């Protein structure tokens, strides 16, 4: 692929490896060089559409392909002008999970990165407003990590408040029907 060759030529030290899966090209990039690589892809190779950004947790991975680090952040890029697709993957170690933020290149990355932080606990350096997005702000743990149980034993502490509120509301009559004790 032409874009991939150009990328390797320009940043030989940043490209960790390449692969093809189901006919889609993938390239592994070192996170320290990610920002320059992305800028190059956006400005010079015309990948103007960041189709998707998400994390993957490879804890306990049983597949054949070796995964050097626990997490990977995946960028699916598309060039509307050239009709080209490229997937950029960034390995992220478990101990210090951070990735540079690409919000300055693609504004759409803002919420994608917030979601990735919310679900995996990966911090995006340079993000303007990194807080939880889908889960409540005082939620503990990162739900899409593989060591997070599907049904955790602990309850979200706020449920008590919600129940107390429901009980309080039960004291009032709503029209002709009474709210059931909850």
């Amino acid at each position, binding site marked *: 692929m032409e874009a991939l060759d150009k990328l390797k030529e320009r940043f030989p030290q940043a490209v960790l490896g390449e692969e093809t899966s189901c006919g889609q090209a993938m390239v592994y990039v070192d996170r320290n060089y990610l920002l320059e690589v992305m800028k190059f892809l956006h400005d010079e190779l015309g990948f*103007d559409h960041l189709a*998707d950004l998400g994390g993957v947790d490879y804890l306990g991975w049983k597949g054949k392909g070796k995964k050097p680090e626990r997490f990977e952040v995946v960028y699916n890029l598309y060039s509307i002008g050239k009709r080209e697709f490229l*997937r950029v993957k960034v390995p992220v170690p478990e101990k210090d999970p951070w990735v540079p933020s690409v919000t300055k290149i693609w504004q759409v990355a803002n919420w994608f990165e917030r979601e990735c932080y919310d679900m995996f606990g990966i911090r995006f350096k340079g993000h303007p407003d990194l807080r939880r997005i889908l889960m409540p702000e005082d939620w503990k743990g990162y739900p899409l990590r593989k060591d997070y149980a599907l049904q955790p034993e602990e309850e979200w502490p706020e449920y008590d408040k919600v129940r107390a509120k429901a009980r309080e509301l039960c004291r009032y009559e709503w029209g002709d029907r009474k709210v059931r004790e909850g």
Partner: protein
Amino acid sequence: MAPTVEVVQKQCGHPEWEEPFVVNMGPQHPSTHGVLRLYLELDGENVVKCDPRIGYLHRGVEKLSENMTYTQAMILTDRLDYISSAANNVGYCLAVEKLLGLEVPRRARLLRTIVCEMARISSHLLWLATHALDIGAMTVFLYCFRDREWLLDIYEKICGARLTVSYPRVGGVRLDFTSEIIDELYKFTEEFPSRILDYETLIDVNRIWLKRTKGIAVISAEKAVNLGLTGPSLRGSGVPYDVRKFKPYDAYDEVEFEVPVGKIGDTYDRYRVRMEELRQANRIIRQCLDKLSETEGEPVVAEEAPDLLMPEKKKTPQAVPHPKKGFLVKGAEVPVVPEGEVYVSIEAPKGELGYYIVSDGSGKPWRVRVRAPSFVHISSIPELIKGHMVADLIAVIGTLDVVLGECDR
């Protein structure tokens, strides 16, 4: 306190008026199309700051799918964009088929294209109905629902469900169309273009409609791409990006249709684009129906497609290797998907709907990520509302056509 006193105080720089006025719009507001909550800071009626807060409908679809087999996880996709569930199913099936390397029979591809376009029409009709209602045109609402009901009845005849259809399956579709359904669809496609004209006479040159939509939430092409807008919201700005044309799937390479684009990128342009898409969708359905007669009696499921049987409840839920098809879990065959990863996107009615699936070579997906157009579109509201008033916010939410089930997943 009389309003005049307030105004005077404000002009004098009274400390109480220095702070912005904070309003929470939603999550129960009827015009936010679900449980969208907008945290607003206002200066009079002007929006100073807008911060959408989502997550009220988060059901953990991605986490749930990791704990299900590939065939079981498909029903979860119905619940993403529940207005056009058939399109969601098709996207998921295409991704799994690509991992499996399955070839879908032609008749199944045609049938899928038909249900996808039906989903587009019913979604756009619901959009037009609610958008017009929000802006103040009540009549359109009832007419749109009349036609949408017709489509839902056809869905019911096809598969028994009206909203969460689960009609496509990995490797094809569940059932073939009966001749009764095909007749009904012919009748619909015959009638529908005149119905579109009816809607247009109601609002196209309506003075209130024009005042509420023209020049509202204008977005340039470059900015729209950078914000990640897709679908009609992007095409309203003049970018002809349509996944059906750029990366054709199913039978879209066989049919003829045009991709309508707007000029300025305001709310009115996006309205025009969607109205034109209704016509094109009708045209696609018509062509597919004509082609269906060529493939009469052909299979609608690929031969190697995985079984649809649900696992039986047995006392020994141990996995037993099966010589040919993989593993037997709890009595039913679970399709084993080869290791790999794939990103497949389709043109859902709302925009580009993408599925990124990672498989580790077992019967359950390792990771399913849904790229939901509504999620991206809601993130662009603060950008679109810059310099507008609270009333325009309703128009902006309407014009982006968001569904919170898809946004929160």
